[in-house]
């Protein structure tokens, strides 16, 4: 018999119609699942009461799979078949993974799709498959706890994840048979957990999220503007975390023992003791260190001195992230702490001193990201009244397509909130043109070469028509995760073609920033270039029209002399088009049009005559 939960006013569902939703923090080291029950967002525990699921998957030759604690226990015994930190490999190509060679103990195999596979006794596994095993375990835990099937989930990803990494995360979810409402940036989820998006006091606020985990450090600067979170800057160190603080203590213990090196077993003991010492010092001022019969007291002050360089490193990254965002410390209105290592008092004190305000620490820093994701999932599942605002993201760079002459037509402007769909109609350039290539571009500049090419596809089967008669509707659609889908449809016949854009690599914030500033400093140059190109295209169009007409009825309607005049005007325009200025081309086009005016008139008469040929004049009276 199911147990019942309290709903928001007016939001009760019919029996068995509960919109069960969960938030998933798919971490490098540990993963969590959380859900909102009776209005309260909490992480869900397994049957042993553990909330954290180690992100470790072990494969056996009989097809069995172990996930979590039990898999982690085998990390040293069955290294090749026990996959940890798969998140670091998600969405990476074979070339990226090469840099992990020697760092990660796995045997990588190339696949057809440029996805690196890990060789295990159970076959070759992609990082996506490994991650999906973690998701499956969390899904089962949530469904057992909530007493029903999950309708959808929100999965968090690092703010710096590019499109390929985000797509890989979604693919892992699909493999785990999960419906993803959306992906959410980890720092944004932490801010949501503290309800920072629900405070209405100000139009805009800047939030710093300081995330010190076991093995990584991330600092993110967010701007919250009317419910829209924008990541202004990210920074950090993918090889700095709580483990380094343990190492610092371990080295000190070694020194006290008067040894420079020790055997594996002693080292492991020292590491375990170092970790204990660190954790005790989070609550106490002093602790007794005891290894191999050696005893010494160790104070929090000593600890602080020891780890000072590590703390400084994180603060340096904070300073740089602020600089990247072009902000001052004073601009930051909220600081959110994420990651188990932020429990250390020294971290809290120094972060408080740096940002000159106490950080938010009330929610368990290991769980805060999952909690934020759960709140968002609950909202997206429709368990909250509409009045609550939905989180939104914006696209960082404009999206557009190549038009004739190497120009870029922007379809969706930068900073547009997503999800969004926009359509625009295009037409053919030449008579009887029956195919059109859609070249999708990203960036702020006016010409194709200056923008980033995302994808190319061709719409075929456009019916035979004169230039400019076909109507091709091109639709750009960006979903809530920033993934782009472009489709083109010929309106008369309905022939259609589409592409999903999954760039093989993404852009760093710096690259995005450079692309934006370039477009500003080069605005004038680009404008001129655009005008010139447009005039060249116009010239091409005029030439094309003349050529097509001449081929059609030039011999019937023109004398040899007239033909010569026209071909001279034509040659003149061709020459000026290649080398002339915008104005010169414009003049040359006019000149050619004037020269051809008599021919145009004669053709019109001809057309009318053809249309009326053989018909009774009386029929035209009305």
């Amino acid at each position, binding site marked *: 018999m199911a147990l019942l939960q309290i709903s928001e006013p007016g939001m*009760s569902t019919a029996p068995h119609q509960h919109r069960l939703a969960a938030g998933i923090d798919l971490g490098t080291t540990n993963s969590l699942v959380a859900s909102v029950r009776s209005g309260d967002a909490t992480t869900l525990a397994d049957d042993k009461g553990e909330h954290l699921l180690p992100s470790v998957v072990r494969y056996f030759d009989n097809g069995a799979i172990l996930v979590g604690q039990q898999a982690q226990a085998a990390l040293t015994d069955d290294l090749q078949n026990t996959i940890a930190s798969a998140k670091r490999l998600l969405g990476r190509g074979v070339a990226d993974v090469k840099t992990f060679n020697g760092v990660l103990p796995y045997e990588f195999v190339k696949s057809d799709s440029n996805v690196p596979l890990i060789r295990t006794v159970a076959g070759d596994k992609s990082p996506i498959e490994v991650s999906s095993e973690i998701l499956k375990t969390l899904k089962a835990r949530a469904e057992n706890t909530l007493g029903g099937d999950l309708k959808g989930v929100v999965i968090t990803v690092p703010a710096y994840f590019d499109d390929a990494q985000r797509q890989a995360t979604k693919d892992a979810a699909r493999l785990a048979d999960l419906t993803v409402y959306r992906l959410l940036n980890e720092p944004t989820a932490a801010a949501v957990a503290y309800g920072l998006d629900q405070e209405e006091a100000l139009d805009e606020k800047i939030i710093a999220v300081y995330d010190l985990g076991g093995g990584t450090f991330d600092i993110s600067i967010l701007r919250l503007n009317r419910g829209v979170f924008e990541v202004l800057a990210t920074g950090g160190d993918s090889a700095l975390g709580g483990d380094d603080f343990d190492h610092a203590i371990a080295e000190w213990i070694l020194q006290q023992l008067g040894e420079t090196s020790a055997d594996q077993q002693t080292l492991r003991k020292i590491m375990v003791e170092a970790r204990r010492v660190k954790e005790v010092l989070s609550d106490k001022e002093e602790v007794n260190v005891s290894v191999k019969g050696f005893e010494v007291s160790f104070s929090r002050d000593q600890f602080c001195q020891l780890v000072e360089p590590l703390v400084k490193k994180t603060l340096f990254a904070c300073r740089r992230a602020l600089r990247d965002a072009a902000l001052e410390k004073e601009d930051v209105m909220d600081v959110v702490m994420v990651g188990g290592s932020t429990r250390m008092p020294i971290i809290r004190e120094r972060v408080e001193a740096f940002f000159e305000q106490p950080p938010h620490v009330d929610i368990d820093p290991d769980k805060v990201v999952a909690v934020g994701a759960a709140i968002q999932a609950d909202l997206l599942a429709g368990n909250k009244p509409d009045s609550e605002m939905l989180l939104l993201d914006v696209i960082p760079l404009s999206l557009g397509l190549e038009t004739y002459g190497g120009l870029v037509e922007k379809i969706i402007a930068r900073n547009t909130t997503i999800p969004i769909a926009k359509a625009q109609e295009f037409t053919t350039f030449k008579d009887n043109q029956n195919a059109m290539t859609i070249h999708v571009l990203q960036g702020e500049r006016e010409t194709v070469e200056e923008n980033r090419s995302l994808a190319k596809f061709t719409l075929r089967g456009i019916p035979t028509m004169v230039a400019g008669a076909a109507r091709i509707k091109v639709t750009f659609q960006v979903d809530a995760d920033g993934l782009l889908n472009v489709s083109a449809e010929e309106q008369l016949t309905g022939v259609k073609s589409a592409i999903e854009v999954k760039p093989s690599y993404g852009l760093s914030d710096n690259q995005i920033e450079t692309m934006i500033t370039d477009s500003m400093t080069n605005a004038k140059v680009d404008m001129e270039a655009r005008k010139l190109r447009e005039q060249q295209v116009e010239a091409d169009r005029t030439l094309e029209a003349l050529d097509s007409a001449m081929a059609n009825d030039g011999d019937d309607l023109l004398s040899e002399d007239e033909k010569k005049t026209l071909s001279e005007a034509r040659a003149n325009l061709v020459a000026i088009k290649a080398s002339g200025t915008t104005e010169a081309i414009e003049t040359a086009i006019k000149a050619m049009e004037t020269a051809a005016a008599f021919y145009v008139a004669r053709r019109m008469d001809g057309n009318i005559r053809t249309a009326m040929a053989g018909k009774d004049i009386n029929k035209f009276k009305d």
Partner: protein
Amino acid sequence: MAITLTEVAAERVSSFLDNRGKGIGLRLGVKTHGCSGMAYVMEFVDEMEEHDEIFESHGVKIIIDPKSLVYLDGTEMDFQKEGLSEGFKFSNPNESGSCGCGESFTV
């Protein structure tokens, strides 16, 4: 008769209300829906309706509309854990049958 909460249930309801930051109490009710006739409704209350009746149990206000009261009078609500799952459970003396899911019942 009245509607009551067990002490555990009352504790949970007040902590959920605190957590939510607003709300005057807990609405209990019934809807004609579900696989076995009636379905229980449990919602936070921000605003009272005109004919609502209030019961108080262990310091928690239980708000109920008169129509639902007919079906719920004498009900005690408890908070329980079953395996990984936890939540509220009704023991309703008016109930003559339920569908086994606990969410709907007949009188």
